[in-house]
């Protein structure tokens, strides 16, 4: 499955009735959607599964209508996944995004899980920006669009996140 077409071209093809193109789109963004859903749901795989499935169903529906991508599809997908996840969380009476329980930190800082611990200590809004920038390789503008916040806020959150990692885990800031 090596479809070289861009996301926008695939979206147009889906609207033309080439349903197989959606499978390409799905495989291209599956991990991103899954990671986002898993993180927002606080690691609840069952809930993340429902969220991911619903997100792709929503995307397919949008593709069949008139969807014009003005940015990366991930920028478009991110708020959708987040909103679906928050709806699910509200429905199941779980805690909201800012109150997702922190993962328990290991007793011995400095092990191979250190970075994971550092991440878990970051406020969600900072962790979110850091992961979008470093894992999903999104630009500041794309992050700002996805999160519907000013670019300056993105910079600020990213700055604080990096500062915290530098402060608490020197080995990760030695790049």
């Amino acid at each position: 499955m090596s479809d070289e077409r861009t996301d926008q071209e695939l979206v147009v093809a889906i609207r033309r009735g080439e349903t197989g193109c959606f499978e390409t789109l799905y495989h291209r963004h599956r991990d991103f959607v899954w990671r986002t859903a898993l993180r927002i749901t606080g690691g609840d795989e069952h809930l993340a599964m429902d969220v991911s499935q619903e997100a792709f169903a929503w995307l397919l529906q949008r593709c069949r209508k008139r969807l014009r991508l003005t940015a990366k599809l991930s920028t478009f997908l991110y708020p959708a996944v987040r909103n679906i996840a928050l709806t699910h969380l509200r429905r199941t009476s779980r805690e909201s995004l800012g109150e997702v329980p922190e993962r328990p930190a290991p007793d011995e800082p400095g092990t191979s899980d250190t970075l994971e611990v550092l991440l878990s200590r970051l406020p969600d809004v900072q962790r979110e920006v850091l992961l979008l920038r470093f894992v999903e390789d999104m630009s500041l503008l794309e992050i700002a669009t996805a999160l519907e916040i000013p670019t300056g806020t993105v910079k600020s959150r990213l700055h604080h996140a990096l500062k915290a990692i530098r402060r608490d885990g020197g080995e990760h800031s030695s790049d």
Partner: protein
Amino acid sequence: MSTQQPQSEFPGPDEYPQLAAELRELANRHPAPVDLDRRVVGDLDVVRRPVAWGRGVAVAALIAVAIGVTSLLLIPRPADRMMAADRPADQTAKSHRSNEFMAMAPMAAEPDASLWDVTADGRVDVLDAFAVAKGIERGMTGTIRDFNSDGRLDTRDLDVLTARIVRVNTGKETDS
């Protein structure tokens, strides 16, 4: 000196490659489960299925039409079966008339079959139906037989004749 720095200069994966690599490694510890593929792509199959059915029906219809047309073309025409030299003199003369369908002289051995044989060529076939259709179209109903015995000469008679032709051609009856 530019006052606006390009965004690529802001700390990112290029400036912190080790941090980026470690974060990606962490993220990859939780790959999307196979069950998600089944659920999402499975939904796609549900969408595809009616499309596949539609295509199947369309192909089947095309094949049916092709078979029908081929069957019609393969039905031996009277002219092919009967050499001009072998035709009776009166029959040859009738074939030159413009209103050939009007010739109702019985040709076949079976009287019942001759009733339907409008063209009097010894067969009850699509040519008889054409002849009747032409007669109705031109208002020459006097030459059409009342096949359905309803006292009127119209397209219903043609329907009855056509139904009989179809039965004959499927081999269920061999009275022509």
